[in-house]
């Protein structure tokens, strides 16, 4: 117990003194998760709207498939990126393997089903009367869709925050396709795994505390949004 307490105190010290390794891992984690999240949101909002507002055969099946992919294992995505973008892969020539770009790509694949599914749910949750009222007041189909999206904005934002949380906390993709290079592709989670394996419990705990604190902030934001 004493050892654990010592590790906790050391962890706080590393955070307060803005330890370079801790700060680098935090910066890489936040930036890669933020870029992945923004890219996924830009992709999923129009796609989710299209799926929600359009009628087409197989729509139900498509939504069920998207929902099934919520629990897509991170290592599966990592493997997929590896197969495609590693030197021997069909797109190996692009040279993005073991770079933040590959990590972003992997995280986009990982969080897209979650964000897409939640955006579709958010739009389905808006009273149909909103879109009908807009139409009856002279809105075009596009304008009526926009007001529906506006009505669902808090739930949509919650889905984005949720996606950010999943990207920020994942370790499988980052480890498999990033290579865990310090200051470049080393994230809080991959660094934490490395430090634990190396026996640097204090550093691993410091990273863990930061991870939990940021997760807490995400959760608070999520709760606030869900209450709107």
């Amino acid at each position, binding site marked *: 117990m004493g050892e654990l307490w010592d590790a906790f105190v050391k962890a706080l010290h590393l955070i307060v003194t803005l330890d370079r390794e801790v700060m680098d891992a935090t910066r890489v984690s936040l930036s890669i998760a933020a870029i992945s999240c923004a890219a996924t949101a830009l992709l999923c909002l129009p796609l989710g709207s299209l799926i929600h507002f359009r009628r087409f055969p197989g729509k139900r099946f498509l939504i069920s498939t998207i929902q099934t992919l919520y629990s897509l294992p991170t290592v599966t995505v990592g493997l997929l990126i590896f197969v495609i973008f590693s030197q021997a892969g069909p797109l190996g020539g692009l040279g993005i393997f073991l770079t933040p770009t590959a990590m972003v790509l992997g995280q986009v694949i990982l969080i897209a089903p979650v964000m897409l599914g939640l955006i579709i749910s958010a739009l389905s949750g808006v009273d149909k009367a909103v879109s*009908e009222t807009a*139409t*009856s*007041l002279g809105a075009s189909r596009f304008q009526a869709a926009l*007001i529906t999206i506006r009505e669902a904005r808090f739930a949509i934002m919650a889905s984005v925050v949720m996606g950010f949380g999943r990207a920020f906390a994942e370790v499988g993709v980052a480890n498999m396709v990033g290579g865990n290079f310090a200051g470049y592709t080393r994230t809080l989670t991959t660094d934490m795994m490395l430090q634990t394996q190396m026996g640097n419990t204090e550093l691993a705990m410091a990273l863990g505390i930061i991870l939990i604190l940021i997760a807490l902030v995400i959760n608070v934001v999520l709760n606030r949004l869900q209450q709107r």
Partner: protein
Amino acid sequence: MPLIEATSLGQEYDGRYVLKGIDLRINKGEAFALIGPTGAGKTTLLRLLDLLDTPASGQVFFDGVDVTRSGHRRLEARRRMSYVQQKPAVFTMDVYGNIACGLKWRHEKKEVIRRKVDSVLELVGMADYKNRDARTLSGGETQRVAIARALVTEPEVLILDEPTANLDPVSASKIEAVLEKIIAEQKTTLIMATHDMPQGQRLAGKIGVLINGQLLQVGNPNDVFCSPQSKEVAEFVGVENILAGIIVEKDDSLATIDINGNTIQAVSDCAVGEKVHVCARPEDITFALTREAGSARNVFEGSISKMIAVGPLARIELDCGFPLLGVLTTRSAQELQLTIGRRVYASFKATAVHVIKRRS
């Protein structure tokens, strides 16, 4: 040329017809009320007229243009109309934002939007609510915002679905006052669905009776309420004495109708031998303890089978070979010492009777 015309309009849901063969012409500036019981298809018809739904059959013309299916023409026509739903949905924004939406969608300038929204807020008496979150308004206030939102675009046609349903009497009268103002001050064509018959009578110059998805009668309020063309319409507009009979004698326009061995005299253009329904409103029946020599051609003796007090009125059901319902003031009932089982005379004039040809 009518502003809105529906020809043979029909709608079906899950293979079941909810509207059938609707032919309707609404002229510019007209105030038209669609009345009918709950589930008659009023909302369905309004949604078709507002071009929110596509009909299963028939056509809708707006200002002479067929707008039944063409997407572009429908948007153009819809932008000349506004529809207030029975339970209006407000957008998650303030009252001003809600009302400004329609103008923004028409790409109006900000100054124009501000001026028009302020003006319409004054009209509906909601100027002080401009910055309120629309979701926090009461039912009556929401309805007024919905009407303001519909009016701000200065529509040629304002369509209202049960504008005062589920509202308290004070809120309902405020909405009615707004509508009366719109009818009086503006040149807006008003189409309104209501199950509140007196409201339809008060606000509209023309009434359509929709029952079981069919438009059974269209006419001015007096025609619809006093001269219903079918038993269904008569029942809906509050004619409570509807008796099946057959015309046995005719003297000019005065017909003698046999009702299960009793005869009623009425003014009618039906011929001898025709099967008819005889309609008499309870308020046209008078009661007396003795057979009085009056102008009423129809006098029946019977015993009171039922008495129900309704506010200041008493509803009396008399068994005189056929059931006859009448109303009189509670005070009159007390003065006549009317009680269940008491024998009285009920009388009504031949001109108070409306005769409808029976379909079978």
